[in-house]
C-alpha cells in the first residue's frame, strides 16, 4: 500500500555541457516509508535525476516539492538540511583520514578551537551502534575493504539525520552475502519510517526489496509501477523500448588447441601475495569467465596478460610463445586484444577524435602509412567501415570521443580491439556502464569471435554476463583460484557467492577440468 507522497520532482530537465540531454521533463514522486526503485539503463538519466535532488547538479528547468512545499536545493548542504542524503556509487571519502574524521567533516567537535578527536570518535561509535553497523572510528579509510567503506558512506549519510536515503547502485561492489546484509539494514531503516530511493538496473534485486519502481529511458520517465504486479519482461521492455532477450543464445562450439596457457603465476604486492600460483588454459573457441569480487587479483592477472606488468614468477604462453620480457606493444603484436575495465582511463582519449582513438594500436601499420606520412585516406576508409559495422552513433569520425554516450564509447573500444580478428581477447568488465542494446551488441561480437576460434578471458563483476556469456568459469578470491565450474550455465549463484567470499575453496581435484589438455 502506498503512503502519502512526501517528495515530488516536477518537469525536471537537464542538459550537460557536452550536449547530452540527461533529463527531459521528468516527473518523479515518492511516498513516505517506501523503498522506491529508480531503474534504467546506463545513460537513462537516473543518476542525474538524483544528483539534481541531492544538489550536486542544478536542473535547467523544473521544481522539487518536499512535503507539499517547493524547495530550492542548491547544494548537498541544502539537501542534507532537508533530510535528503545520498550514498554514491563512487565513494566520497578522504582516504588518508580516519573514519571519525570523515564522519565529522564539516561538523567537527571543538575544544578551545582545536578539533576534539575524542568526541569525534565517541560520536562515530554512537551512530554505528544506533544503526547496528559496527565500525572502528580510528581506522584509516584507505585501509578498509570496499564493503566497510560503503558502510562508512551510509553511516555518514544517516548520522546527519536524514529521512530520505538515496543509494546509487549500492550492490555494484558487494558480494551476494554483503548484499543480503545491506538489504537487512535497508528494511530496518524503512521500518523506522524512512524512505529509500534505490537506483539500480538489477531487476532481481529490485524485485526483492522494492515497493514501487520508476523506469527511465533516454532521459525521459516511462512511468511508475507497483513492483509486485509488474514482470521483469515488462520492466525490460519499458527500459529499452523492445523486448530485450535476457538470455544470451550460445551455440556449442568445438574447442580447439590451447592458445593461452597460464602456469603457476604468482606476484607479490609488497609483502602480500596479489597472485598465488595461478594456472589455467584457454583454448580456441572458448570463453573462460572470471568471477569474483573486485580486488581479489583479477586486475593484477589482467595486467600481466596484457603486458602492463611483467611476469617474474611463473610462465604465460600464447601459442607456445612466452610473454616474459614482452611489453604491451609486443603482446599486442601477438594478436592479443584488451577491452579495459576503465574505458575512460585506459581505453580511450576523450579529447581525441573517434578515428584517432580507433587507430591508436595500429598507427605504425604499413597499410595506414605512406612512408613518413600517415595515410589519412586509408585510415578514414577503415574507420568509416567500422563505424558502420559497429553501429556507432556519432556525428562524424572526427568527433571527439568524449562526446559520445558510454555505450558508444565502448563500441569504439570494441571496434578497435575486436575488428582485427584477434587470437586472444582479454575482456575486463566489457559492458560496465553500457546500455542494454550496446551491451547486447558487444556480447554478440564476443560470441562471433568465439565461434571463429578466438580464446577469450572474460572478467566481469556482472554475474549475469559472466554466467551467460562464458563457457566455463573460475572464481578468484584472495589472489587464488577458489573454484572452477565446467559449465557456466549450470552454476548456482548462492554456491558461487560462497567461493567468491572465500567461505569455500575447491581442491585441485575438484577443479580437474581446468587443466584439460
Amino acid at each position, binding site marked *: 500500500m502506498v503512503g502519502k507522497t512526501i517528495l515530488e520532482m516536477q518537469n525536471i530537465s537537464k542538459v550537460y555541457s557536452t550536449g547530452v540531454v540527461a533529463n527531459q521533463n521528468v516527473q518523479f514522486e515518492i511516498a513516505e516509508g517506501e523503498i522506491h526503485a529508480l531503474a534504467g539503463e546506463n545513460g537513462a538519466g537516473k543518476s542525474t535525476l538524483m544528483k539534481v535532488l541531492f544538489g550536486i547538479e542544478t536542473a535547467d528547468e523544473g521544481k522539487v516539492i518536499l512535503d507539499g512545499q517547493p524547495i530550492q536545493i542548491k547544494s*548537498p*548542504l*541544502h539537501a542534507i538540511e532537508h533530510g535528503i542524503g545520498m550514498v554514491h556509487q563512487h565513494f*566520497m*571519502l578522504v*582516504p588518508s583520514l580516519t573514519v571519525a574524521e570523515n564522519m565529522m*567533516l*564539516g561538523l567537527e567537535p571543538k575544544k578551545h578551537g582545536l578539533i576534539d578527536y575524542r568526541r569525534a570518535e565517541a560520536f562515530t561509535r554512537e551512530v554505528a551502534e544506533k544503526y547496528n553497523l559496527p565500525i572502528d572510528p580510528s581506522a584509516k579509510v584507505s585501509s578498509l575493504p570496499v564493503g566497510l567503506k560503503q558502510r562508512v558512506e551510509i553511516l555518514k549519510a544517516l548520522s*546527519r539525520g536524514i529521512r530520505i536515503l538515496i543509494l546509487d547502485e549500492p550492490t555494484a561492489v558487494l558480494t551476494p552475502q554483503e548484499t543480503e546484509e545491506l538489504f537487512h539494514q535497508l528494511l530496518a531503516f524503512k521500518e523506522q519510517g524512512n524512505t529509500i530511493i534505490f537506483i539500480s538496473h538489477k531487476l532481481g534485486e529490485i524485485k526483492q526489496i522494492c515497493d514501487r519502481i520508476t523506469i527511465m529511458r533516454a532521459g525521459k520517465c516511462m512511468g511508475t509501477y507497483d513492483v509486485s504486479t509488474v514482470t521483469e519482461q515488462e520492466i525490460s521492455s519499458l527500459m529499452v523500448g523492445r523486448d530485450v532477450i535476457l538470455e544470451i543464445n550460445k551455440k556449442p562450439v568445438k574447442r580447439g588447441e590451447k592458445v593461452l596457457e597460464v602456469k603457476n603465476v604468482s606476484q607479490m*604486492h609488497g609483502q602480500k601475495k596479489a597472485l598465488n600460483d595461478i594456472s589455467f588454459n584457454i583454448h580456441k573457441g572458448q570463453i573462460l569467465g572470471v568471477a569474483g569480487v573486485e580486488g581479489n587479483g583479477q586486475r593484477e592477472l589482467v595486467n600481466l596478460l596484457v603486458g602492463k606488468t611483467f611476469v617474474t614468477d611463473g610462465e604465460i604462453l600464447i601459442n607456445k610463445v612466452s610473454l616474459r620480457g614482452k611489453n604491451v606493444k609486443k603482446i599486442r603484436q601477438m594478436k592479443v586484444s584488451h577491452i579495459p575495465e576503465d574505458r575512460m582511463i585506459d581505453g580511450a582519449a576523450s579529447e581525441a577524435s573517434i578515428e584517432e582513438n580507433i587507430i591508436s594500436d595500429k598507427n605504425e601499420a604499413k597499410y595506414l602509412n605512406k612512408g613518413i606520412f600517415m595515410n589519412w585516406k586509408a585510415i578514414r576508409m577503415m574507420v568509416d567501415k567500422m563505424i558502420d559495422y559497429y553501429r556507432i552513433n556519432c556525428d562524424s569520425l572526427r568527433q571527439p570521443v568524449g562526446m559520445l554516450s558510454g555505450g558508444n564509447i565502448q563500441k569504439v573500444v570494441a571496434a578497435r580491439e575486436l575488428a582485427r580478428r584477434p587470437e586472444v581477447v582479454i575482456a575486463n568488465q566489457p559492458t560496465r556502464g553500457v546500455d542494454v542494446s550496446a551491451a547486447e551488441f558487444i556480447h554478440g561480437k564476443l560470441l562471433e569471435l568465439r565461434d571463429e576460434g578466438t580464446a577469450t578471458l572474460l572478467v566481469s563483476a556482472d554475474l549475469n554476463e559472466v554466467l551467460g556469456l562464458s563457457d566455463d568459469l573460475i572464481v578468484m578470491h584472495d589472489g587464488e583460484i577458489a573454484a572452477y565450474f565446467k559449465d557456466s550455465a549450470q552454476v548456482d549463484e548462492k554456491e558461487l557467492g560462497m567461493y567468491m567470499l572465500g567461505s569455500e575453496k575447491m581442491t585441485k581435484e575438484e577443479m580437474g577440468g581446468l587443466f584439460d589438455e
Partner: protein
Amino acid sequence: MILEIIGTTSFWYAVLRVSTPIIFASLAAIVSNKAGVVNIGIEGTMLISSLIGVLISAFTQNVLVGVLAGILAGVLAALILAYCALHLKTDITLTGIALNLFASGGTIFLLYLVTGDKGMSGSLKSLVVPTVHIPVIKDIPVLGEIISGHNLLTYLAFLCVFLTFVLLYKLPVGLRIRAVGESEGAVASVGLNVIRIRCIALILSGIFSGLGGIFMSMGYVSWFSKDMIAGRGFIALAAEAMGRGTPLGTLIASIVFGFADALSNYLQSLQVPAELVMMIPYVTTVVGLLIYSIKRNSKNKFKKEGKNESKINSYVN
C-alpha cells in the same frame, strides 16, 4: 676554502637570514598544495608584496602599515589567482604564469608611475623591519651569534612553521583543507563549499607569500628592484615537494636551499667566477629534486599514483 666559510658563525647566521623568504614561500606552497591547488604564482605574489611594502612604508613612514599593506597585497594577488583558477577555471599553471608575468611588468610599471624610478626604488625612503637582539640568548657563545640579532620576520618565519602545523592538523579548517585536496567529492558530499575552502587555502598562501616578499625588500635589503625574488617562489615549490608536504620537512628543505644561497653569496666575494657561483642555489634545487624523485620512485613502485602526479595530470587542457 668552503670549510673555512662554513666554520664561521656569521655564515650560519647568514643561512638563517637567507632561508627566511624561502621558508615563508614554502609554507605558502604547503597550504595551497594540501588543498589541491598548486600555487605557481607564489613568485609573482612575493614580487608584488615586496613592492607594495616598500611603497607604503615610504609614504606612511610606518613600518607596521607597510608590512600590513604588503600582506594585504599578497592576499589580493591570491584572491585574483583564486578567481581565475576556481571561478573562470583557467588551468592553474597558466594562471600562475600569467600572475608572474603581470607581477614582473606590473611592478615596474607601478613603481615608475608612483615615483618615476625605472626598475629600482632608489629615490624612496622605505623602511626596514627591525632586527631583534634576544636578551639572554645573544650572550651564548657560538649559538648566540647565530640565533640572535635576526630580523623580526626571520623569527616570525620559524613561528609560522609551527603555526602551519597546528593549522593543518589541529584545526577544523586545516582538516577541511586536507580533505579537499584529496577528495573534492567527500567535501562536497557533506555540504561544504569546495571553492570556498580552496579560496581560504589560497588566502593563507597569499599571506605567507606576502611575508616572504616583504622580507626581501624590507629586511634582506631595503629597496625594491626588478625581479628581485629571483626564482625563490619556485625554489619553494621544490622545497615543499622534498619536504613531503610536512611543515617540518619543508623547513629542513628550505634551510638546505638557504645554505646554498648563502654559500653562493660568500663565494662571490672570493675569486670564484660570479656566474658559476650564482648557479649554486639553482643547481642545488635541481639536484635535490632529482634525488627526491629517484628515491620516491623506487619506494612507490607498488603504490598508486602519488598526489603530485594527479595534480600534474590535472593540468590537461
